[in-house]
Each structure stands twice: as C-alpha cells, then as structure tokens.
C-alpha cells in the first residue's frame, strides 16, 4: 500500500486558491456599475446566447466570470432559491443579501470539501429606490463575500480595469454614461483598439421600472442595436 504524502492544510488551501485564481484570470472582465438610473452590468462576451449576466429576481441581477458550467449552475440555483422564497413568502422578501449569503455558503462548502474549487467570481446586484439603497456583493471562489460600493470589476485584468473605472465614476451617471465608462474600462484590458457591440453583453437594472415600464422586473437586456446607439451617443 502506498503511503499518502502529508500536505498541510495551509498548503492545500493555498494550492486550491491559486488554482481557482488562475482559472478566473483567464476570463474576460465583467463590470457592474451603480449609477443614477440604476445599475448597469457590462461584460465582454462574444456569445449572443451564453450569458455572463442574468436576471435572478425583480430587483436582483447576477454577473459572473470564470467557468461557464460552474457559474451557470450557480445562477440557476439562485433563480430557484429566489423563486421559491418569493413564492412561499412574498416577492419583497427576496433580497440580494439573502441570496449572496446562500452563494457564500455553497462556494465555501465547495472550496473546502470538494475535489476542486469553483473557478468563478460572482457579483449579486440589487437596485434600490435610491442610490444609497443599492447593494453590490462580490463573491469569490472560496466563499468570501464583500459588500462593495459604487462598482465592481471582476475577471482577468481586474486591477487595471478597476483603476480606469475609479477615475471616471460619478454618482450622477446616466445608464448611457455608465455603460460608456465600463466599455472604456474594458478596452484597457484588451489588445483590440475598440470593442464592437457584438462582443459586448449589456444589461441594466432599471431603478424606475415600475413607473416607466409598468413592471416590477427591473432587469432589462440591451440588444446590439441599443448598445450601438448608446456608444455612438455623446454625453
């Protein structure tokens, strides 16, 4: 019988974290920006059907980088969690905080107990009645959770992109301005000189969806056409 090598818990966790980090760093960035009109979610994603950004519930959206099958299963679990909760209690009892802590627990459990940690980083965003009531949570592969303000940048060159967003972020940005800022940020991460609308995935959580569109579902995915128009517009 072969003797198992002893690996210290510190080393084991460090190896796992390095592994997950490497997986995430290969992905392209996703940016979540809170602004005057609501929350804008922008991702570099050439696929028109495999989404990195998704709707979870009325006011809650999801964005992720990393391995598609892993974050897609988390997204679906999130939708199930939210729908069950909203159905059994009430729609207003579904909050980003509750969802984020469920995600934190599952990611933490996978990180410590499974063969391989999830190579994902998630953002859970909830739009509020005012900008101060917006919630942005960032979740990493090991289940740590952070309550962020104003914006979140995840993925490959997060530090570089984050710097660009930080410089341009203001409280009173409109959706158009926030999306343009995010695209500018994504371009620092990219060798190609400009990003085409086709390679972008853009969605928004509309702060005033109830009054402007008559629906409590704030999530709206923008079409390529919308994105082209937004980027062409000058503020």
């Amino acid at each position, binding site marked *: 019988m072969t003797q198992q090598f002893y690996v210290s818990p510190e080393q084991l966790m460090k190896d796992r974290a390095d592994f997950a980090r490497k997986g995430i760093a290969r992905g392209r960035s996703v940016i979540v920006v809170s602004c005057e009109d609501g929350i804008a979610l922008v991702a570099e994603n050439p696929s028109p059907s495999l989404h990195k950004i998704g*709707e979870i519930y009325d006011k809650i959206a999801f964005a992720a980088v990393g391995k598609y099958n892993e974050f897609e299963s988390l997204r679906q679990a999130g939708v199930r969690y939210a*729908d*069950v909760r909203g*159905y059994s209690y009430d729609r207003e009892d579904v909050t980003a905080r509750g969802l984020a802590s469920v995600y934190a627990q599952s990611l933490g459990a996978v990180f410590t107990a499974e063969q391989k940690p999830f190579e994902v980083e998630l953002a859970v965003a909830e739009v509020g009645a005012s900008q101060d009531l917006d919630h942005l949570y960032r979740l990493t592969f090991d289940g740590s959770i952070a309550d962020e303000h104003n914006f979140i940048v995840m993925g490959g060159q997060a530090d570089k992109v984050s710097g660009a967003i930080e410089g341009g972020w203001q409280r009173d940005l409109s959706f158009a301005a926030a999306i343009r800022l995010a695209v500018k940020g994504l371009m620092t991460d990219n060798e190609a000189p400009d990003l085409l609308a086709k390679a972008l995935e853009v969605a928004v959580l509309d702060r005033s969806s109830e009054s402007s569109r*008559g629906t409590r579902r704030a999530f709206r995915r923008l079409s390529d056409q919308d994105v082209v128009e937004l980027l062409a517009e000058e503020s």
Partner: protein
Amino acid sequence: MQETTANKVAAHATSSFTEHLQRDRPELLPQYAPFAAGTSAGQPLAVPHATTIVAMTYAGGIVMAGDRRATMGNIIASRHIEKVFPADQYSVLGIAGTAGIAIDLTRLFQVELEHYEKIEGTLLSLDGKANRLGAMIRGNLPMALQGLAVVPLFAGFDTAAGVGRLFSYDVTGGRYEEQEHHAVGSGSMFARGALKKLWRPNLPEDEAISVAVESLYDAADDDSATGGPDPVRQLWPVVYAVNRAGARRVSERDLAATAGNIIESRAAARREA
C-alpha cells in the same frame, strides 16, 4: 445500477418551477389530495366563487375582461375581487370557479412562466404555456370532483404566428382553442349571447374593450353571481388588452367612460329585457 453523475445532473436540470417544488419543497405546492372522508360531496364548501370572464380577439391581439364580484352561496363575498391576471408579458389568465384555489393556481402559474424565462433565457411558446396550464388544472381534479373546480380562460399573443389566441379548459385539464371569442363562468351563457351579436372580425381595440364590458353587463343583468359596473363605488371590470407590444391593463378612466356610455345608452333605450 449505479447512477452516473451526468445522469443525475441531467435528471435534475428542469426549467419548471412546479417540478422543482415537487422534488425539493413539496409542502409548498397547493395540496391537491382529496379531503378525508366526512366532507360529503353533496354539500359544497361555502367558499367564494369567481364568476364571469370574457375574452375575444380584435385587430392585433386579444382582450380579456372579468367582473368584480365573488359570491358565497347567495351572499356577495367580495365586490373588489380581481379575476383577470397577467400571466407574463404576452399572456393573460382569467379565472372562474373556486376563488381561493384559482388565485393560488394563478400565482403558481405566473412563477412557473417567469422561472422558465429566467432559467432558459427565452419565453415559453404560447402553446407551451397553454399546455402547462392544462396540466395544472388536471392536478386539481380531485378537488374539482368535490366541488372546488377552477375553470380558467387563457389568452395571449402568439409572437411566432403574430396573432392573438384564446384557450378554454375543462376541469380535467382538457385544452380547447377557441376562435373569435369565448366566456366562462356562471354568467357565460348570457355573455356569449351578447358577444355573438356585438363582436365582429377586426374590431379596433377601443371597440373590443367596449364589447367586453357590454357583454359583462348583459351577464350581470341575468346572472346574480356576476357584478355589473358599479358607478356608486366606481368599480369597473378588470380589462387587459394583449398585442404585439405586450399585455396592458386598461386604465380605470377609460373603463369608467366605456361603462358610462353603456349605462347611458341602456337607460336611454328604456327597454325591459
């Protein structure tokens, strides 16, 4: 036989909210189990019943309307009940029958459609929605046999075909596509009579709304379980119009004007029946 992980994952991948509840939280589903012996089938429970719903096609979509009365035997249980609900962006649902079960079923159906849309990233086809509703009605069959039946009317805009379509159901979940117009509930035979005379192909939207309100007026005239327009409490039917742009609730102001016109013309005619 050992189940492979892939098989397990595939078996758990469902876009249906009801299936998910059945598997993980069965206690949250409406309980369809028959009552224990002791409740005789001869004495229906005294619970509120919702009555007349009418729906019809018009140029570019469909209109559905429901009165505001719920009855419990000979008592008016509610003057404010709403029986027409948006199911999702392109479809609406009207319910007649046992109000409590119908409202529960509607809520589950709404979540079912939204859940599918979020998981799959696309809307269910109109036929898919209609079939799903049929399955849910069939699930209620044991209760229906004890007198707690729910009979919905489902209508929506078929985005693929570009037309508005109507579906009626029986208590066993049988789904029947209706042409032109239809009504369900205790006042439906009177409403249908009115619809046959008032409806014509390609009505403009405002006339279709007026026809819907007038057919409910006729139903209320002869059926005690159907409430007519109530100018004292300013209560009008709940009316939804669905077209290419989606489902829209017709405003109270428009309905007040429409109902006002009908009451006025009936008063002016001074006819007895």
